């Protein structure tokens, strides 16, 4: 009997316990559901923000990848191009004489009213008589230069008619794309009513088409001819800086991390170094710019606005990131791998370089890419070392003056022709993002390959 009673009380107690557990269970499930909901909400929010950003950038940037281009048959009319035949080398002229004659000829070319050729071509195609001022409003400012260099390269064109593609001016492009309000009254429009009508007419006749803007990638920045401004200089500047960062920051950073993590004795000095590295990672990038200006330019007299200086500054900025990430990766290697190597009689150096480092390679690569991508997008320090200067040439070496993609974005963002450069800015951002994507793709490719091998 007592046994049965005990069993009953026992089962009662266990039922009570079960009820308590069930009550707490529903509480726990609720907490779980709330947490899950919050997580999903956070992800949705993040995705929405990133989506908006990308949509903004792409919807604004894509139109500027296609730009209004005039297709004209240009006649190099001898009445307009009033220059003699180009001097020929070796035709009885000494080299010095030839040099002088050639310069004279080029001077004569510079005085030719090339816009008149364009005006003639437009008259031929539309029947509208326009003057030089109208041409300047209609086509990009460097159209005359395009014609001149075409003729200079091939003087035989005199008297001939050739089809040429010329960029419509920035204001004209705005009008055709509708980035300027078409309903604005005349006094607030950038272009005269005649020019606007002519543009619409040419567009309707397909004399003006929207062509892919290759010049965006091959031309350098331009202030006088905004329609033909391109990213080539900034792209090369960024590329040089990236190479410098990779060549300097990766070996120095990884080597420091290996030394600090694996070989350095644990004492006050290494503690101090560690604290300093962690603090450096949190230093605002503009401070690194100041440092670069003070040390590299003032003290070492390296050229101002040069990608070399920019690369050095960005290297300093990237080093802490790479060191910290590499140390974390080394720390994460399981002690059993180290023991396996040491137990076999591997020296410390052999252990580190033959076993630990290969395992951490993927993480180090990831850290490097994050660091380099960060450096690639950095603007502030570059402003302080003069890389926001207007540079109208592609840098041939890291010692030439140059600008960088993010700085180009900043410069274009501040351009007074907002209607035109807003899209340009987005296009530059697309190129910047593209460069980063390529970089990341290379890193992921290398990482998966290394992981598979490991």
């Amino acid at each position, binding site marked *: 009997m007592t046994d049965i009673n005990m069993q009953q009380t026992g089962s009662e107690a266990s039922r009570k316990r079960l009820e308590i557990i069930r009550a707490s269970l529903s509480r726990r499930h609720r907490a779980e559901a709330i947490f899950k909901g919050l997580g999903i909400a956070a992800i949705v929010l993040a995705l929405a923000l990133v989506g908006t950003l990308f949509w903004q950038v792409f919807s604004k940037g894509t139109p500027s990848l296609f730009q209004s281009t005039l297709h004209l048959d240009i006649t190099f009319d001898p009445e307009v191009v009033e220059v003699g035949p180009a001097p020929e080398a070796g035709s009885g002229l000494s080299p010095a004489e030839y040099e002088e004659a050639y310069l004279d000829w080029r001077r004569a070319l510079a005085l030719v009213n090339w816009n008149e050729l364009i005006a003639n071509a437009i008259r031929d195609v539309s029947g509208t008589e326009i003057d030089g001022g109208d041409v300047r409003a209609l086509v990009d400012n460097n159209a005359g230069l395009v014609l001149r260099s075409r003729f200079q390269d091939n003087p035989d064109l005199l008297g001939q008619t050739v089809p040429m593609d010329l960029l419509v001016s920035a204001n004209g492009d705005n009008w055709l794309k509708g980035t300027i309000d078409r309903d604005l009254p005349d006094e607030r429009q950038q272009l005269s009513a005649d020019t606007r009508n002519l543009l619409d007419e040419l567009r309707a006749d397909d004399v003006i088409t929207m062509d892919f803007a290759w010049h965006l990638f091959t031309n350098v920045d331009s202030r006088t001819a905004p329609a033909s401004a391109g990213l080539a200089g900034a792209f090369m500047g960024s590329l040089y800086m990236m190479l410098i960062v990779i060549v300097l920051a990766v070996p120095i950073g990884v080597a420091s991390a290996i030394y600090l993590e694996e070989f350095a004795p644990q004492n006050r000095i290494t503690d101090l170094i560690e604290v300093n590295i962690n603090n450096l990672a949190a230093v605002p990038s503009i401070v690194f710019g100041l440092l670069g200006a003070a040390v590299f330019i003032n003290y070492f007299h390296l050229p101002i606005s040069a990608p070399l200086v920019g690369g050095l500054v960005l290297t300093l900025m990237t080093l802490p990131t790479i060191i910290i990430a590499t140390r974390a990766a080394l720390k994460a290697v399981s002690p059993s791998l*180290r023991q396996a*190597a*040491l137990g076999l009689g591997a020296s410390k150096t052999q252990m580190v370089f033959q076993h630990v480092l290969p395992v951490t390679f993927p993480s180090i690569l990831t850290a490097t890419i994050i660091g380099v991508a960060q450096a690639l997008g950095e603007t502030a320090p570059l402003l302080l070392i003069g890389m926001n200067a207007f540079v109208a040439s592609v840098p041939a070496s890291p010692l030439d003056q140059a600008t960088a993609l993010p700085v180009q974005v900043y410069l274009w963002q501040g351009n007074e022709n907002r209607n035109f450069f807003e899209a340009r800015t987005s296009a530059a951002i697309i190129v910047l993002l593209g460069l980063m994507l390529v970089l990341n793709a290379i890193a992921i490719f290398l990482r998966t390959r290394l992981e598979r091998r490991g």
Partner: protein
Amino acid sequence: MDMIAGRGNMAEQNTDKAAKVDTLSDRRVRVSTRDVCVFYGEKQALYDVSIDVPDRAVTSFIGPSGCGKSTFLRCINRMNDTIEGARVTGKIDLDGDDVYDPSLDVVELRSRIGMVFQKPNPFPKSVYENIAYGPKIHGLANSKSDLDEIVVSSLRKAGLFEEVKDRLHEPGTGLSGGQQQRLCIARAIAVGPEVILMDEPCSALDPIATAVIEELIDELRENFTIVIVTHSMQQAARVSQKTAFFHLGKLIEEGPTEQIFTNPVHKQTQDYIMGRIG
């Protein structure tokens, strides 16, 4: 009851073995330690351990967790060097060479004393590379064919060759747990050590894999001096000829295995073997 019955069986087995290997006291001493103390910072982990490890036999260290048996094992090949703040006093000799002599190169020492760890830890490389690594760094192979030979013979000695001969160039981490541990044993053998230290080599393995490894250990003692740390008394009884019992950092008792298991002198040893402590 079971325990005692088991003990009886073990004792019988061990008497057989003892007859086969004659008395341990006649054997050459391979590793001898005198008054070894280990400190981790201020804390003393091991107190005055003195023991002789006989040549070509299996010596097992048993004792409850935290008794210092693994710590002591790691003193023999100076793996404790890698632990920050660890300090070893006393004397450990390998064939008469002082292991802690400052002029002795620890790399050379570890080529003479191989080690197998608790968790199988093959390198994340191919089976072949795992075994070839030791001979390569020590310059033991003059040619590719030498190396091939070392790899194959090491795998054979570890009883693994038949199982992996078709996948020598596949990652060693892809093998089963027991195979991985035998790969680690083969890797240790490949360097040609005099002594092999095993730190609970079967604790991560299932009973079948454990049985295979135990059999292997029994074969290996023909050629190697083996020291094994184990928390399984049955394992100690099955594979070892000499047993040392550690408790709270002290060596309580050591002697021929059958004596420790059938007729322990100290009460603590008896309690542990009977399952009363630990």
